[in-house]
Every structure is written in structure tokens, then in C-alpha cells.
């Protein structure tokens, strides 16, 4: 039976982290080299954590499923990273970043964690610059900033439209330095299949070598999961093809609580869907909303003419354009938070004003910015994004407005962690998108990079010591222990079960079907009836999968279909938990919009009296209902209000 203890330190909010660091347990340098840490995942959180642990002197084993740590999907983050530096002298502060993040998350995140995040945000920029990350600069040589949704200051640092790439390459460079120094050992093309728990503590992992098919075991005194989010449960998302929820799901089944699985971010500015064969959706950075104006035609007949190709955007005069975000939210305009912008786009398209051939698209127009700033300036700011848009769609965004539509982008939910980022399994820590901790029910733009690096560089290197200090008496982990045998056997059994089905349909068929159910019923807009339907349909699809999936080839070699099958098998369970969570949360907050709970103006209606808590789900065995645990959220330093961007 799980007990949730958030372990928030006593004392005033602004002093909690300092106090924690001053009083926590530390591990002496000669003991550090006797302790092993496993890090799974090499995105911003994993790479920065593994490199930092190595620098401190721990023995680190780091794992990724790709051919190199540099491929992790943090690489694809475009727009930027937030930090409360106040370099722009525009009134920013740690408190304001904290406030914006809590409010942006619709008052469903933990105060102490978010304050710490804001507190260390500035250090991340310092660290990245020292590593050689080429952030954008002014002519004077100092760093420049831009603004993102949901805030009134410019606190976002960026490197063209490739900020995630540059930050990841910085962390990867630090990781490389530690690999060369021998403190970190890299295991690439390895996928984590199970977590090994010995005497109630996380002690190792079982992985599949994706080249040879061999099942391997690794032991450690602590395990860090930095395996990203589960957005690919929707099949179509902005995630990489290989992004998956399997490591987190394995941990859940071993006793780690899964928090707020229903909190999913649908990003408003993605290139619209264009065909059945499509394998993924491509994001157009939110930073574009700094200079682009979003609109649809006021008249339905104009929208229809555009859909049929009889008119183009440029045929619609300004007075017939509905800049609906500027109209509905004059204070924030095009820079409202993502959940608000996405719902507003859906509302307009559902009302018949959509513009893509499918009717599911709105315009993001740079005409006005080009008139104001000149083409050169726009090219400098967004050149690579414009080029990417043109390559994908065949349309030149300097001449015609972009067409965009919301798409699944990020999962705020994830494994439950306490203030130390430790899950409900002692010794299992979770960082980055894989945990639930900082973004509540909606994440602000440019905050994912901040959180991943905060966790990896500045939080885990402290908190993991508080745990490991008591592990110095424990010798090297014995990977011949029976718990390793059992875990390995379970993995092997699951693989042979998958291989032996030999049905008719490829894995992608089931993944697509699951994606449709999730998008229709557990997507941007949810209701009781739909969620109940989703739960039943997912169950039926899961049964069908285990009867009819076809995986060619063998398990003892490189087999991409088998890799996909394992991930989809887990998504078919995780999707159900998401629907269960969405069904239980009878309110609308952030990205979770329940149609039954909205204001007369169609805005989200929170029910703080009943749902101001983190929903943490405990696995109770196959076919059993998961058990709900509640962590109440207390706001002592922020006044809880109805979120308004008007």
C-alpha cells in the first residue's frame, strides 16, 4: 500500500531549498566511487544528471535506445528556455516565474517544487553558456530574450529555433567528457524492459540489446528514469517515433505511483494532418506567436472557399479576418497559454471557420510582422522554422500565412515524485518529462527545457546523495539475485508471448486505432460518456492486439517491429489509465477540459473544493482497478484565482 509523503521541507517558501541543501546528508568523495547509479534516457534530464553524477565521482551507467545520446527528443525543442534573470529589466523575478508557472498550470502543481525550479533557472543559463551553448545575442555581446505564452515578461533564452538541440548538445558534451574520464559508461541501442526491486528498493534494470536481441541485467544503488513523456499513446504527436512510456509503465507495475496521467498538453501550433499514412505531426514553435497573428475568416463562406481552394488567405481583407485570440483575450492576445489557444482553435474550426482542406486548420500570419520589421528580421528570428514549414507543406510562409492546428505535444502527468524527485519506490528517482512534478495541468512554453535541466544539473545531484548516504554500507549490487532472475524471466516471457501471436495485423494498425480512440475521447475535449466508451474500446483493442498482432523475424536479432510491439502493448494499458484518470477528475483545469464543467463563455471551470489534489494511481495487478491516492495541494504563497488571460 502506497503512502504519499511529499517531504516538503519546513520553513518559508524562499528558504526551503537552501535549508534542504544545508541539512541534507552527503556522501564523502571516497565513498562516491563505490556507489553505482543507473540513468535511463539521455535527453536534457538524463544527460545532465548522468554528467553531473560523473563529475561528482559516482559510477554511472547511462542507457539510451537510440544509436547516440545526442538523438534524444529534447533535441527537437525549438523555441527556448525560461529563466528568471531579469536581463531585460522588465520586472521579472524568481517569484514571478514561480507565479506564472503555478498559474499557467491552473493551480495543480506543488508550490515548493515550482519555486525551486524558478530559483535554479538562472544557474541553467550560466551553465549552458559556460559549456559553449551559442544563445542568441545582442550586438553588445550580451544575451537576448523573447517572450512566450502565458507571461508578461521576456525571459526566454534561445538559439535560433534550435534551443533544445543546443542545450542537449551542451549536456551531451559534458556527458562525453565524463565517458572519456571513465566515470560514465554508455550503453546505446538498449531499451529498458523492467525495473528490478530488491527488498523494496530499486536495484537495477533489465534491458534488451536492440542489436543482438540479448536480455541484459545491470545493478546499481539507485536508478534514475529520465525517459520522457507518453504522448505517443495518441500515435500522432510531435514526439519522436521511438518516444515511449514503457520504462515508466514498468516502474508503475513495480509499485511506483503514476500521477495525473490525464494531463496532456495539446500544442496549438502544429502543421495540420494531411493523410492516413502520416507517421507524426510537426510542431511549429510557439515563439512564432510573438510575431505571427492567428486568424480565421469571419464569414463561413470565405472559409469554405479557402477549403475548396477557390480563395487564398491573401484574398480575405483585414476587416473580414477574425483574430479570435486578440478578440477573446485582449491582455495576452496571441500569447495566451497553449491549452487556451488550442481550445480556441478547435472552437472556431468546430463552428465551421476552419481553413485546411480537412476543415481543421487556422492561419498563423506573418504579413503584419514582415510589414513592421522587414523580411530580414523575420528570417533571422525564424528562418529555419520557415524553411521546415516550406519543405513539409510546399507553401512559402513569407508569402502565404502558415496553416496550423493543435497536436499532442507533452505530458504533464508522469511518475509521482516527492520533493527529492524520488518515486514511491525508494531508490527510484524520476526526472524531466517522465515525472509529474512542476507543470500542473498545463505547461508553459519554454519550461520543459528548464525543468529537464533543473532536475538533472541542480536538483538530483543533491537529493540523490540524501538517499545514497545510507547506501554506503551496501556492497556492489548482486545481479545474480533471484529478483533479477524473476524480472528477466518476465521480460523473456513477454517477448515470446508477443512473438508467438503470429496474427494478421502489423503493430502500427493497433497503434493507429488506439490513437484514434485517445484523440476522439481523451483529447482536447472530454466528457463522461466518451471516456467510458474509450475505456471499453481500449480494452477490446488490447484483447484484439494479443490475438492478432503480427511480428515478423525473430527476437534474437535487430527487430524494429518487436520494439514497437512492446511499446504499443504498454500504451494499450497506459491509455486506459489516462481515461480512468480523466473520468474521475470531474472538473476542467489546464489541458484537461471536461465539457460538463465550463463557464458560460466556454472557459475551463475548476472545482477547487473537490479536486485540488494530485491524483496518484497505484497498480493493483492485471485486470484489477488501480487505486487512487490523493496528495492535497496547499497554496500558502500564492492566491488561488480563476485563471484569466483576458
Amino acid at each position, binding site marked *: 500500500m502506497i503512502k504519499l509523503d511529499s517531504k516538503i521541507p519546513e520553513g518559508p517558501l524562499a528558504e526551503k531549498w537552501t535549508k534542504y541543501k544545508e541539512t541534507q546528508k552527503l556522501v564523502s568523495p571516497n565513498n562516491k566511487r563505490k556507489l553505482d547509479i543507473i540513468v535511463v534516457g539521455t535527453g536534457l534530464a538524463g544527460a545532465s544528471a548522468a554528467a553531473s553524477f560523473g563529475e561528482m565521482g559516482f559510477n554511472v551507467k547511462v542507457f539510451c535506445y537510440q544509436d547516440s545520446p545526442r538523438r534524444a527528443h529534447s533535441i527537437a525543442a525549438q523555441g527556448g528556455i525560461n529563466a528568471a534573470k531579469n536581463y531585460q529589466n522588465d520586472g521579472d523575478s524568481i517569484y514571478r516565474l514561480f507565479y506564472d508557472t503555478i498559474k499557467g498550470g491552473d493551480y495543480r502543481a506543488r508550490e515548493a517544487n515550482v519555486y525551486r525550479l524558478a530559483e535554479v533557472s538562472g544557474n541553467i543559463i550560466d551553465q549552458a553558456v559556460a559549456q559553449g551553448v551559442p544563445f542568441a545575442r545582442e550586438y553588445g555581446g550580451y544575451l537576448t530574450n523573447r517572450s512566450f505564452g502565458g507571461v508578461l515578461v521576456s525571459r526566454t533564452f534561445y538559439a535560433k529555433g*534550435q534551443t533544445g538541440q543546443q542545450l542537449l548538445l551542451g549536456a551531451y558534451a559534458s556527458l562525453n567528457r565524463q565517458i572519456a574520464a571513465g566515470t560514465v559508461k554508455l550503453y546505446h541501442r538498449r531499451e529498458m524492459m523492467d525495473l528490478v526491486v530488491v527488498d523494496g528498493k530499486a536495484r537495477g534494470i533489465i534491458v534488451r540489446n536492440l542489436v543482438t536481441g540479448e536480455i541484459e541485467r545491470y545493478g546499481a544503488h539507485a536508478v534514475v528514469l529520465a525517459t520522457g513523456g507518453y504522448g505517443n499513446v495518441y500515435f500522432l504527436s510531435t514526439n519522436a517515433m521511438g518516444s515511449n512510456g514503457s520504462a515508466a509503465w514498468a516502474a508503475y507495475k513495480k509499485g511506483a505511483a503514476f500521477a495525473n496521467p490525464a494531463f496532456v498538453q495539446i500544442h496549438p501550433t502544429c502543421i495540420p494532418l494531411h493523410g492516413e499514412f502520416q507517421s507524426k505531426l510537426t510542431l511549429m514553435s510557439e515563439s512564432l506567436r510573438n510575431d505571427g497573428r492567428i486568424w480565421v475568416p469571419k464569414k463561413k463562406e470565405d472559409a469554405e472557399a479557402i477549403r475548396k481552394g477557390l480563395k487564398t488567405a491573401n484574398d480575405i481583407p483585414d476587416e473580414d479576418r477574425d483574430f479570435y485570440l486578440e478578440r477573446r483575450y485582449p491582455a495576452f492576445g496571441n500569447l495566451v497559454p497553449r491549452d487556451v489557444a488550442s481550445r480556441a482553435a478547435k472552437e472556431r474550426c468546430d463552428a465551421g471557420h476552419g481553413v485546411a482542406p480537412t476543415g481543421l486548420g487556422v492561419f498563423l500570419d506573418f504579413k503584419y510582422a514582415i510589414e513592421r520589421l522587414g523580411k530580414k528580421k523575420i528570417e533571422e528570428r525564424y528562418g529555419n522554422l520557415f524553411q521546415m514549414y516550406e519543405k513539409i507543406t510546399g507553401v512559402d510562409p513569407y508569402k502565404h500565412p502558415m496553416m496550423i492546428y493543435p497536436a499532442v505535444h507533452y505530458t504533464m502527468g508522469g511518475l509521482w515524485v516527492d520533493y527529492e524527485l524520488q518515486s514511491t519506490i525508494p531508490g527510484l528517482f524520476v526526472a524531466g518529462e517522465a515525472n509529474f512534478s512542476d507543470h500542473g495541468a498545463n505547461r508553459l512554453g519554454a519550461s520543459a527545457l528548464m525543468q529537464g535541466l533543473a532536475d538533472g544539473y541542480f536538483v538530483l545531484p543533491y537529493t540523490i546523495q540524501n538517499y545514497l548516504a545510507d547506501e554506503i554500507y551496501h556492497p556492489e549490487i548482486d545481479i545474480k539475485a533471484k529478483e533479477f532472475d524473476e524480472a528477466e524471466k518476465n521480460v523473456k516471457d513477454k517477448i515470446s508471448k508477443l512473438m508467438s501471436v503470429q496474427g494478421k495485423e502489423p503493430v502500427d494498425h493497433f497503434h493507429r486505432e488506439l490513437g484514434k480512440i485517445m484523440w476522439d475521447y481523451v483529447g482536447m475535449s472530454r466528457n463522461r460518456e466518451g471516456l467510458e466508451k474509450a475505456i471499453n474500446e481500449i480494452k477490446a483493442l488490447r484483447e484484439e492486439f494479443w490475438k492478432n498482432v503480427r511480428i515478423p523475424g525473430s527476437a534474437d536479432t535487430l527487430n524494429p517491429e518487436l520494439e514497437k510491439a512492446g511499446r504499443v502493448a504498454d500504451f494499450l494499458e497506459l491509455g486506459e489509465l489516462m481515461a480512468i484518470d480523466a473520468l474521475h477528475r470531474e472538473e476542467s483545469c489546464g489541458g484537461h477540459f471536461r465539457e460538463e464543467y465550463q463557464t458560460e463563455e466556454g472557459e475551463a471551470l475548476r472545482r477547487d473544493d473537490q479536486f485540488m489534489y494530485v491524483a496518484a494511481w497505484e497498480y493493483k495487478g492485471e485486470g484489477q482497478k488501480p487505486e487512487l491516492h490523493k496528495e492535497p495541494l496547499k497554496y500558502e504563497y500564492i492566491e488561488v484565482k480563476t485563471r484569466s488571460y483576458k
Partner: protein
Amino acid sequence: MKFTLKIWRQKDSKSKGKFETYQIDNIPSDASFLEMLDILNDELVRKGEEPVAFDHDCREGICGMCSLHINGRAHGPDEDVTTCQLFMRKFKDGDTIWVEPWRAKGFPVIKDLIVDRSAFDKILQAGGYISVNTGNAPDANNIPIPKDDADVAMDAATCIGCGACVATCKNSSAMLFVAAKVSHLAHLPQGRIEAKRRVKAMIDKMEELGFGSCTNTGSCEVECPKNISITHIAKLNREFLKANLDV
């Protein structure tokens, strides 16, 4: 659209490979090249055959995982894109398309179109970093950097490590890849401190791992999906010379 595909199939690193021919029909012109391979693989799986193995991940041109020599060109016929951002509308209906893995001594084939590029990681491990521990850094604005230098560093740092430069070079040289990292860090004051050690170590490692020398043909620059200029190789050469002359 309809295509004849000639695809390199190879069971594993030890087996000999050969081209297989596949006919494929009903490909939408808006499909990406990798989505076309998805459609082919879907058909192969349904027929009970092994699908074609290829590396890919982000499918938005930034992770550097996808590769492929298509009709003799790294990342195919379009300019400045990776294979995942190559769309079928760039081909003519009825075309025959030849698909091969990267071919270079430094990149052995693992299976079908998948090659082992861990040599790139090893080159970077040899010195492609600034030695700064977490927590060491001064305030970011204490290191002002002229915008022009920062911009050049950014252009170099944009390398995605895909290996197209090596696959294209007749000498299988990794010079553009190495130059991109050396130039990126050499343009920044915080990277100057280790510049000499870095350039020597990375060049040594590159040679040790079986990559050839640069003979300035410039083909790498032409095929680089991120448009990295060979002026960075010139910068690398200057840095290498300075390091060896110890000036």
C-alpha cells in the same frame, strides 16, 4: 504515385548484402520518404516478410538519426534536408529509386540500411567539449561574446551528426563533422582555453577510427542537410596548424 525500389538488404554485419527489388503503388505525393518506406514495410509484414530496417527517430530533421543514400546522394535529391524531410513529390511517378546505407569504413552496416555511427561519439569524447563542471559557471552575461562570433559558432553548432558528409566524401573523411565542433568552440572565448588540445585530440581520434583525409573536394558541404560550410574546415586547419606550431 508508383515506384520501383532497389533496396540494399543485409542480414547483419557479418553477412553479404544485395539489392532487392520492390514495386510500390498508391504512394501519396505528400508522404515523406520514410513514410513511403513505412507503407512498404506494412505490406511486407502483411505478406510475412521481414520489413526493411532503417534508422529514424524525430522525423523533423533535427535528431540526425535518419540517413540513406538515395539515388547516389546522401539524404536524396532535395537540398538542405534530411531523409525524413524529403517528400515523394520530389520524385517523378514511375521512377526507379536506389536506396543504400551510408558506405564508409568508419560506419559498418548493422542491418539493411542501419549503420553504426558510434565513431562520431568517440571523436567527440576525445575533446569536443569545454571542461566545466556543473556549478562552476559565472553569471552568463559575464562572458560577453561579439554577436558575429556567436552567430558563426551557432552555424557550426547546428551539425546534427548524421554522417552525410562522411558518406559523401570519396575519402570517407569526417573532416566537416570534426570541423563543425572545433569551429563552434574555437569561436567562443570560453572554448579558446582548450582549443589546442581539443583540435589535436579530435583529429587523432578521427584518423585512428578509420576516417580518411580531406582533399578539399567540397562534396560534404553540398550534401550537408544543415548547410555547414567548408569554411569551418579552413578554420579547423588554422586551429590545427596553430596547435602544432604552438603559437
